[in-house]
């Protein structure tokens, strides 16, 4: 830890608890020197946002509490402060997820940023002009409703709005999330410029390790609520572990995720199996997506996308956040109705699709943002997945007909199997909402497995997991595919995982397909490198 007296922010050993039970941060310490950019790195759910929120004192509004440790800003302990006071003192946070005021115009949004300052009309327009010199793009759109601007513009609005408060310190939460690489670059340029010209100190939480380390001076890596690693941006970028875990660069003997399949046997036998043959040969197309287009109001989410899924294969969909991957799954799943195009399942056109119908046809899924039944136990959650294998109606359940009793027993046995397969026996009666993120992801997979579907759609099943957990998850996915022959469609950000376990990959960007093929083909596709993988990956 640097002992710089020039630190604008010093965080010492903080522990954070949500709702009095869920421990989000265990022991986090970090410093931000005046006028520097410090990056906070780590996977989803590692505690980056929580750290930022404890600094900006926005934690209280989410029922979180700093239970241990101290946070000093500008030499003063921030304990007991509220967000509006922090803004007065020059600390402003830009929240995750482009949260601008959708019903206000762009300019109103920016003006709202000056709420804490007493500005005359003249000062206000001067400030506005100054902001517009940084965000030239926004000037043209100043009178349009913020909700209808593009993702990048919204992110800019959020940053510009924060700048209007004239901060000494800016907390940026995932500014690159869901943005195309060029836009990311543009935003980071502005951030860098603000840092240099206005002298704003910046604490940056970022999943995109690559770009963050490129722009920051110093970095911390968080994992499950702890600082695992810290150092100057350069040293981190060259750290082997960082390279392997966060940059997807592998040198030397990096373990292939596909080998996870044999972890079980390895435990038993010590010798690694040599045969890597698959029980189920990849067959013909089971699901075909043809010329799908989807838009919400005026915003295009998917434009004319076509691809197919073969029986028994593991098919990955990759692309930056907001590229339309989840929307694609939602179309297949029937949650969204695409305006154009058709989806064929086993050669038959799916008409008037809805999730209920799709599930009965043997397609099951998990969700990106965890869609579990929070107030039910793990076992009950997974039992809901047995719905399609439950024939009894409510009357039979009410009177406990013999066949209902038998059916319930069978379903329970099946779910117990899944639970022991996922190795979550010890939490089976716990209420799901109280579980940590990683376990919830497992439960969701379990629920999807319980349906015994032919196709599993997995939306970022490994988000926010460390490598060990990811390996575990890969093992489950591979086993399901290998032993039951379940076709798997996978959305994943971890290129290592995608390249290792998938048979074929489709790459989406801005709602368009820019590449399709085996991992090797996709990896060398220049378009894909440009739009998604970035230059650092080659």
């Amino acid at each position, binding site marked *: 830890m640097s002992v710089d007296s020039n630190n604008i922010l010093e965080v010492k050993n903080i522990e954070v608890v949500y709702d009095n039970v869920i421990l989000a941060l265990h022991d986090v310490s970090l410093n931000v020197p005046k006028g520097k950019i410090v990056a906070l790195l780590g996977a989803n759910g590692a505690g980056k946002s929580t750290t930022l929120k404890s600094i900006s004192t926005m934690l209280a509004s989410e029922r979180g509490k700093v239970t241990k440790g101290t946070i000093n800003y500008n030499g003063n302990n921030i304990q007991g402060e509220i967000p509006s006071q922090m803004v007065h003192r020059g600390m402003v946070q830009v929240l995750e997820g482009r949260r601008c005021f959708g019903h206000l115009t762009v300019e109103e949004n920016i003006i709202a940023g000056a709420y804490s300052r007493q500005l005359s009309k003249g000062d206000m327009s001067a400030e506005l002009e100054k902001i517009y010199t940084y965000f030239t793009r926004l000037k043209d759109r100043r009178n349009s409703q913020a909700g209808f601007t593009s993702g990048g513009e919204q992110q800019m609005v959020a940053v510009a709005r924060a700048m209007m408060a004239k901060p000494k310190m800016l907390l940026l939460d995932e500014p690159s999330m869901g943005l195309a690489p060029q836009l990311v670059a543009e935003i980071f340029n502005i951030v860098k410029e603000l840092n240099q010209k206005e002298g704003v100190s910046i604490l940056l939480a970022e999943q995109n390790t690559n770009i963050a380390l490129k722009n920051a001076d110093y970095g911390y890596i968080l994992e499950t609520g702890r600082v695992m690693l810290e150092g100057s941006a350069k040293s981190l970028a060259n750290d082997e572990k960082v390279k392997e875990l966060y940059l997807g660069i592998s040198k030397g003997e990096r373990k292939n995720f596909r080998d996870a399949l044999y972890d079980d046997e390895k435990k038993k036998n010590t010798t690694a199996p040599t045969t890597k043959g698959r029980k189920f040969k990849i067959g013909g197309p089971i699901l075909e997506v043809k010329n799908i287009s989807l838009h919400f109001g005026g915003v295009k989410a998917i434009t004319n996308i076509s691809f197919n899924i073969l029986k028994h294969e593991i098919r990955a969909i990759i692309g930056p956040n907001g590229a339309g991957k989840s929307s694609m799954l939602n179309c297949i799943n029937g949650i969204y109705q695409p305006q154009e195009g058709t989806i064929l399942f086993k050669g038959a056109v799916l008409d008037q699709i809805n999730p209920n119908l799709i599930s009965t046809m043997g397609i099951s899924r998990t*969700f990106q943002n965890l869609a579990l039944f929070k107030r039910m136990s793990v076992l009950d959650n997974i039992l809901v997945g047995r719905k399609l294998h439950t024939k009894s109606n409510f009357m039979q*359940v009410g009177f406990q007909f013999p066949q209902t*009793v038998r059916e319930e027993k069978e379903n329970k046995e099946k779910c117990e199997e899944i639970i022991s397969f996922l190795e979550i026996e010890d939490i089976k009666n716990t209420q799901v909402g109280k579980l940590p993120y990683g376990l919830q992801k497992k439960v969701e997979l379990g629920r999807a497995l319980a349906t015994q579907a032919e196709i599993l759609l997995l939306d970022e099943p490994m988000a926010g997991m460390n490598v060990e957990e990811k390996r575990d998850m890969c093992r489950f996915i591979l086993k399901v595919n290998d032993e039951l022959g379940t076709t798997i469609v996978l959305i994943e950000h971890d290129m290592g995982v995608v390249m290792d376990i998938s048979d074929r990959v489709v790459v989406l960007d801005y709602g368009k397909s820019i590449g399709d093929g085996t991992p090797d083909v996709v990896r060398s596709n220049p378009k894909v490198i440009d739009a998604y993988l970035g230059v650092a990956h080659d």
Partner: protein
Amino acid sequence: MKPVFMTFTRGDIINFIVLMVLGFLIIPMTITNGYWYSSILIPWLCLALAAVGQQIVMGYAGQLSLGAAGFMAAGAFACFNLILRIPDLPFVGALIISGLIAAAFGILFGLPSLRVRGIYLMVATLASQFFIVWMIDKFGWFKNYDTSGIITAQNIEIFGKSFTSPIDMYYVVIVVVVILTLIAMNMVRGSAGRNWMAVRDMDIAAESMGVSLLKTKLEAFAISAFYCGVAGALFAFTYLKSLEPVAFDIKLSFKIMFMVILGGLGTINGAFIGAAFILLFPVVLNFIGNTVFHGSIDATIISSIEQVVFGALMIIFMIYEPLGMAKLWESIKSKIGFNKKK
């Protein structure tokens, strides 16, 4: 015994036996005063049954509904008319058909739940409350053209024996309530209840698991209305005896909703505990006012205090224990070691 108790643990069975012994042996043996039956136990059981119905739709299926009293009215007047117009129909049959008629209304007014939720749904269910009561009130046929608009429930006859004394009626009510509660428990612990809760917690995920929102929501509304309908019929036949439709006004709906919220959303126990609280608290308050303060406290004040306490409790429970008194009761039990792990 096996099938009925399949989803029940040993602790549940012990509780059940204890409650049955209490309900069928100890209470009838110890309490001889008709007052206890006719103004505490019978209305408590009836309202608790309605609260079980409300619990199913609101606590389990998560649909904010404010029409329980309307469905009770439908059940009560259906039962009256069935017995009046079909002389050979046994009471139990009339009770079931009244429940089914209420269930039909439940489905009709549950339809908006497919499109809307929260306060929107609440307003839609208010329509059912106002409409059902109005309909019964305005069409003389439902009240057998009684000029005063007040009907008198017939005497209950089962297998030729007429049940008129408070304790007789208590038996009728408790048998019906026990059977229906067991069925409700089976449902909420079985696949039906899981579907409701899944819809409550995350409807889109539930749909993706093959749970039909249409079927599940309407099912919950229908069953809820069935329970309310039967409860309404019992309420009319064993408690009120003479009644007019306004007996089932919006206030009663609010009360039943309070029972469920204070008792604890999503527990069958909560319905009973909540009903007991809502029913007994004013009695106790009045009792205190009369005996401790010898009537020196204005009745207005007492009834205002009652309102303030209900309202405040609602807020306090929402903040500190959204699972209500049932959860509180569980914690107390586990604290004094009543419910030791076996």
